[in-house]
């Protein structure tokens, strides 16, 4: 189950998106997130979705592979959706469908819930596409390069980038380790599946402690291995992979400028988030 987490898992392929500069991709993702939160109506979100689908096709990553990344936060999405649905602070003119104590369900709250769930989904899928098409090393190189100006205020940019890339690199190893420990504990009669939340959380303690111990041991080993390979910080270090902005990146940047403009235009000139209700009522003469 834990092996399904795609975060930090690079999907090797040759594609336009894979070949883009990580800095450009990072900027795009930032623009993409801005677009998601700028979008005030469904048309904007649909535009963002179309753009995401376009990029998934362009990246030649199977859709299933991208969708798998939702699994990790499905609980979060469902949870926030339920909260939104039940506790939406309605305004005047809401069409109330059900009301009980402090809970109100209205057309507005339903639409709001769908809207926010879509936002979250798009957010996760977009960032998943970034990590699927960019190696963690390229990603951290990109972050390092974008943060470079901070070096002048003595911010340890290189160290931070390396810490991030190593953290990403160890995610699959630690997942594997967790599975192994869970199996070992199950074999000795541990029970992770039944009982209430607290009981299950308690059952995880015999998993977490060995995991922590092993993580520390790994860290020590890795430190030795890095020392042995002459690591001594950013000083005097060269980089094998050079980041170069190409026509691809320019094209991508233009594309995203277009996306944000599109979202803003849709916000301004098309119906607002809830206007769809009145529209539907009008159509059906309710």
């Amino acid at each position, binding site marked *: 189950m834990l092996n399904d987490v795609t975060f930090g898992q690079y999907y090797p392929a040759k594609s336009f998106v894979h070949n883009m500069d990580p800095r450009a991709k990072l900027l795009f993702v930032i623009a993409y997130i801005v677009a998601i939160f700028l979008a005030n109506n469904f048309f904007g979100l649909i535009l963002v979705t179309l753009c995401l689908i376009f990029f998934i096709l362009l990246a030649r990553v199977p859709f299933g592979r991208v969708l798998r990344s939702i699994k990790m936060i499905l609980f979060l999405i469902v949870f926030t959706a339920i909260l939104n649905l039940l506790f939406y602070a309605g305004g005047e003119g809401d069409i109330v469908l059900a009301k009980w104590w402090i809970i109100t369900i209205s057309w507005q709250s339903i639409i709001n819930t769908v809207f926010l769930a879509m936002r979250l989904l798009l957010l996760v899928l977009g960032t998943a596409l970034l990590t699927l098409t960019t*190696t963690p090393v390229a990603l951290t190189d990109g972050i390092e390069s974008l943060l470079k100006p901070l070096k002048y205020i003595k911010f340890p940019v290189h160290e931070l980038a390396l810490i991030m890339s190593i953290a990403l690199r160890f995610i699959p190893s630690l997942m594997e380790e967790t599975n192994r420990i869970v199996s070992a504990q199950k074999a000795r009669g541990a029970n992770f599946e039944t009982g209430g939340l607290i009981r299950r959380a308690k059952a995880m303690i015999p998993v977490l402690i060995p995991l922590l111990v092993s993580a520390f041991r790994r860290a020590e080993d890795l430190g030795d291995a890095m020392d042995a390979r002459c690591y001594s910080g950013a000083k005097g270090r060269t980089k094998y992979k050079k980041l170069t902005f190409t026509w691809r990146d320019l094209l991508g940047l233009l594309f995203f400028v277009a996306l944000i403009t599109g979202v803003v235009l849709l916000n301004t000139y098309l119906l607002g988030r809830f206007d769809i209700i009145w529209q539907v009522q009008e159509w059906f003469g309710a």
Partner: protein
Amino acid sequence: MEDVTSAAAAEGAAASAAPELAVRFQNVKYTYDEEGGAFAVNGVTLDIRAGEFVAVLGRNGSGKSTLAKLVNALLRPTEGKVTVFGMDTSDPKKAFDIRKSAGMVFQNPDNQTVASVVEDDVAFGPENIGVPRKEIGERIAYALDAVGMSEFRHATPSRLSGGQKQRIAIAGVLAILPKIMILDESTAMLDPKGRREVMNVVKKLNREQGMTVILITHFMEEALEAERAVVMHRGEVVMDGTPEEIFARADELETYNLALPRAAYICKQLQRAGMPVADAFNAEELAEAICASLQKG
């Protein structure tokens, strides 16, 4: 600076007479416990010549891994002196150059990979020592070719087999172009196939490139591939010779809790049972020895 060059010159002069000295241990002691605990390495004096293939054998806790870490200055001796090509490992300023000439491969292949793509991981060492970009590419190609992993240049290490991962780790060290390769139980976590892969690579490096190899292991079979075997027991070097010499002293080995290689053990048992077979250390030799003795009989 001057003494380094003069030392190198003196060494060069000595090299014309005898092979160059790669590693020298002079009465080295090391303890992990600062307050006078037991010595993990206790008075080791040992010379390893350049181009030699040395297997270091010993039980768990015999001090063999500590010995390995003393060579590339991951540990500094508590007492005595370790020199690598004349460089003293207790001088922190030399650590960088020592590690450039003595690369080390560790036990767990998962814990020595820093990157998520093979070529980035192999590039890590050259990047650290400031090799220009273009040359790093060439070094990656060379190192991956040397371990027979060229086709995996863009692969993800976590998807490879144990033997393959360990060959990538060797490539990562090779890319620094060291003269000494230390393998600290690098085959211990591998299956027989992975072990063979790694051993073949190591043998090739030693034979074709004259790489000095220090192989720390508790697999007796692997020691047979070496030219020289050193047995450690409780922090001390207790036996030193060719693997054949060492394995001929089976009774002594037993006192250090070490077993003979499988074939040698069977051979010994046959001899004890009264069959006149010649000493043999691997399966082929044993088969020949048995055939010969049967023909005679």
